[in-house]
């Protein structure tokens, strides 16, 4: 938390334990020292070489599981080709440092090289399967894994590339800057050092724009895209990141085993890695690490039941999914600090926060000078039409929205209001017509590009990232305003740190507009635990955190009680008057429409049937007909 974080309106809302952070940093340093000492000592405690090998394999599994955790855990992509990347890494090592092709590259070069090449394969797989979701993604990646295995088995003819069933063996001994790595102890050090690097990298990436972007995609891909996350690119990065780690692990594995053959990279291996990730809890770095350690060592104690091993893995999957899908460590209290409950007073009675969250005095202040409707147009729709296979949801809709104007869209159910929003925000490309924002054509842009250009929206049926904290929900919105790549995140370069501070500042500022309802202890609360009205508020705060100029609010007062409705109405007005937003709003409550609107348009069957001031539209004959039906003559 930098000095700029303490200035500005968020000042009083900073988390109280600022002093605690310094302490926890010392604790962290202690932790690192402890882990370092452990890693130095443990190999020497192993009773024999057999156990040393298991210790080394455990480290490789930790890396593998954490790599899968990037794709499946962070981004929620069920990648069943993961084990193929492990294989590619292994075979690349075999190609680059053995007599097989008579290439003998030094290990410090081979390791990053094969990791990078594998990452390229990861990108390729991601690019091919980008449009697929859930089950389809799983099955396509599984098909790729099968093709990979078939190739491994059969590419020994006509030219011997993979060595067929027998694989390739007898590799160059590896040497790192003069140190020959031959003994199991040396391997243990090397493997666990890299495993530690992967663990630290996982933590860093999880708490960055990448981590938040992935989590948002996992929670709700469409909402992530609509909040400015370039979901396409982030999914590619997830595949690539997983593949990178898998490739590096494969290289280590090949060297450690001194051989590669197809059966090390089969479906069973994949299930084992998945079990580790799921046992630890998807996305939970500590959990996944422990899961990998547990499942690498446990089978050694159950050797006499070896035949049941794979059955046991199958059962783990079934039972965990039914009883503890979040994994053994997921959401367990003892690892996280106990939160004080500032929402309760000393006697434990719930304090209701009913204080108004907007500044009453500023509301009474006269409108800012110079405000008038006939400013330059900010958003224009020209004859926009949306045709869903014959059903015309929006029919030649044209409208102009001027800067700092609140335009309400009303109309009966199915009139095409939300579709119009979807067309503007890029969720559907319109069948015909043009959308202009500040004079530039934005028709056909992807939702995240629309956000980047300055339009943000909320969803009628609430699409928050439910498992993410309130603060992280708002932070996701800064994704399109930040540019750090994986390198600056992993190395904590100044750019990443500046951006993180800025992100936190903006998110807290926006949330603080809603007062105690979204700030304080609520920063760390999961969005799913908020009340309905607070979730609506968070939707708005999230949209505002994208630094948008134009807000599109889809029924902001839906489901709110009369008092909350009054509050949100005033707040929307304040957004325009004080903060200078331009607002397009869909609303059913006509008293809200009446209070906030500069202008109103009425839609029916996708067509605009009336436009003008509230009074004009409300007394329009066609509008009355659309709502109430035609009078019988």
């Amino acid at each position, binding site marked *: 938390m930098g000095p700029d974080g303490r200035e500005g309106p968020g000042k009083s809302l900073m988390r109280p334990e600022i002093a605690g952070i310094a302490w926890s940093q010392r604790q962290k340093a202690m932790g690192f020292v402890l882990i370092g000492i452990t890693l130095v000592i443990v190999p020497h405690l192993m009773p024999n070489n057999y156990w040393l090998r298991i210790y080394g394999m455990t480290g490789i599994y930790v890396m593998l599981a954490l790599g899968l955790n990037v794709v499946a855990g962070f981004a*929620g992509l*069920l990648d069943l080709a993961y084990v193929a990347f492990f294989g590619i890494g292994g075979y690349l090592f075999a190609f680059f440092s053995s007599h097989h092709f008579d290439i003998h590259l030094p290990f410090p070069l081979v390791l990053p090289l094969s990791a990078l090449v594998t990452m390229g394969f990861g990108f390729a797989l991601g690019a*091919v*399967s980008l*449009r*697929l979701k*859930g*089950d*389809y993604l*799983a*099955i*396509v990646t*599984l*098909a*790729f894994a*099968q*093709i990979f295995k*078939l190739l491994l*088995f*059969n590419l020994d003819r006509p030219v011997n590339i993979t060595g067929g069933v027998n694989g390739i063996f007898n590799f160059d001994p590896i040497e790192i800057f003069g140190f020959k790595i031959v003994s199991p102890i040396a391997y243990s050090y090397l493997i666990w050092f890299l495993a530690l690097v992967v663990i630290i990298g996982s933590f860093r990436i999880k708490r960055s724009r990448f981590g938040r972007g992935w989590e948002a995609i996992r929670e709700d891909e*469409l909402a992530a895209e609509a909040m400015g996350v370039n979901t396409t690119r982030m999914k590619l990065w997830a595949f690539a990141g997983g593949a990178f780690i898998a490739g590096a692990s494969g290289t280590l594995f090949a060297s450690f085993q001194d051989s590669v053959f197809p059966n090390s990279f089969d*479906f*069973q291996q994949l*299930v084992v890695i*998945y079990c580790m990730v*799921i046992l630890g809890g998807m996305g939970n770095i500590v959990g996944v690490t422990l899961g990998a350690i547990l499942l690498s060592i446990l089978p050694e104690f159950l050797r006499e039941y070896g*035949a*049941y091993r*794979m*059955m046991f*893995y*199958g*059962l*783990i*999957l*079934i039972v965990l*999914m*039914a*009883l503890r*899908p979040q994994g053994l460590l997921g959401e367990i209290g003892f690892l996280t600090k106990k939160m004080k409950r500032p929402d309760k007073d000393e006697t434990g009675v719930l304090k209701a926060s009913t204080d108004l969250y907007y500044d009453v005095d500023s509301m009474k202040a006269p409108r800012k000078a110079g405000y008038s409707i006939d400013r330059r147009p900010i958003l224009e729709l020209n004859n926009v039409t949306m045709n*869903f296979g014959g059903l015309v949801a929006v029919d030649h809709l044209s409208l102009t929205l001027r800067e700092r104007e609140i335009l309400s869209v009303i109309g009966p159910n199915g009139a095409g209001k*939300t579709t119009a929003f*979807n067309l503007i925000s890029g*969720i*559907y490309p319109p069948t015909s017509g043009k959308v202009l924002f500040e004079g530039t054509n934005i028709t056909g842009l992807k939702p995240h590009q629309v956000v980047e250009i300055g339009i943000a929206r909320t*969803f009628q049926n609430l699409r928050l990232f439910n498992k993410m904290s309130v603060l992280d929900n708002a932070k996701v919105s800064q994704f399109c305003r930040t540019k750090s790549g994986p390198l600056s995140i992993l190395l904590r370069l100044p750019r990443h740190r500046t951006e993180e501070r800025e992100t936190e500042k903006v998110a807290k500022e926006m949330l603080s507009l809603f007062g105690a309802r979204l700030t304080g202890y609520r920063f760390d609360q999961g969005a799913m635990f908020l009340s309905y009205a607070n979730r609506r508020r968070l939707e708005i705060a999230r949209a505002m955190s994208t630094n948008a100029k134009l807000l599109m609010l889809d029924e902001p007062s839906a489901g709110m009680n009369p008092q909350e409705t009054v509050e949100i109405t005033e707040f929307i007005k304040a957004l325009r008057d004080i903060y200078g937003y331009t607002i397009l709003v869909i609303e059913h409550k006509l008293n809200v429409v009446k209070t906030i609107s500069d202008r109103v348009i009425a839609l029916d069957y996708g067509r605009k049937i009336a436009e003008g001031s509230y009074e004009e539209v409300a007394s329009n004959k066609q509008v009355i007909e659309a709502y109430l039906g035609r009078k019988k003559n």
Partner: protein
Amino acid sequence: MIHGIRTFLYPACSGNDMDFYLQQLPQQLVNGLTLGGVYALIAIGYTMVYGILSMLNFAHGEIYMIGGFVGWWVLHLLIGESGPVLHVSLVISLMLIIAMGMTGLLGIAVERFAYRPLRKAPRMNLLLSALGVSIFLQNLVLHHQGAKARFFLVSSLIPESLRLFQVGEVVFSFMRILVIVVAFLLMTGLTFMIKRTKVGKAMRATAQDIEAASFMGIDVDRMIVFVFLIGSALGGAAGTLVGLLFTQVDYYVGFQAGLKGFTAAVLGGIGNIYGAMFGGILLGLLESIATTFFPATYKDVVAFVVLILVLIFRPWGLMGEKVPEKV
């Protein structure tokens, strides 16, 4: 199964010569139709479950494999020292019926223990649970039956004179015809049930909208059980038929067959039963024609490439409809 197909069908084809290919075409059509019938039966199981629960029943391939083992077991019991103890038609009927019954029950058990607890859970969890079931069943059979293939003693079941006969250039085998006929009968029966019976109507309603169906008084849970029963039974029948056709079964056949069946289901448009039938036959024909062009080792790649292409370019299948995501 893969070995079986290769050695049984294509001892001679290696050339890409066009004349040779044209000569082979009728034979390949017959072979493809047989294979296609089997794929269609497997695909129906996938598509029915998908239609009603929108989940990919990953364990379906293993159910098919277990169907093969049950068929083998029944045959093994009914064949004495000097040939079958019952009439051939009775033996085959018993094999099919018992295999279908057992796999049907297995399907119900799988639904009850692995999928029902997850009905409200995210789809990813369901899929992982299905993956678990698949691995579990596969290794259960491995543990119980060993890794070696079991051979169907078809030679002592069917008299030599009936086994193979030739019409013009095309060689038919008794088993091939049997597979086509049984697959056709089962699919006709299923179509009749879905179109003409009360249960079928309830099933269609449940597939369209599970909630609305339950509001209209349909016992949705029972419908789901029913779907698993029928889908798994058809998969079991396919397992036994393939066992009879290629004379062997092992613990690992389910994986490949499952992927092929799923490919067929997707090809036709998943969720659509007629699509699954069509997709199965199409995939069978494609594979068997492709073997004249490619080395047999890469035969499976054909199915996978078809799967990948369809899912990427036309994920709603050849007969399905594109449904835009509701926002």
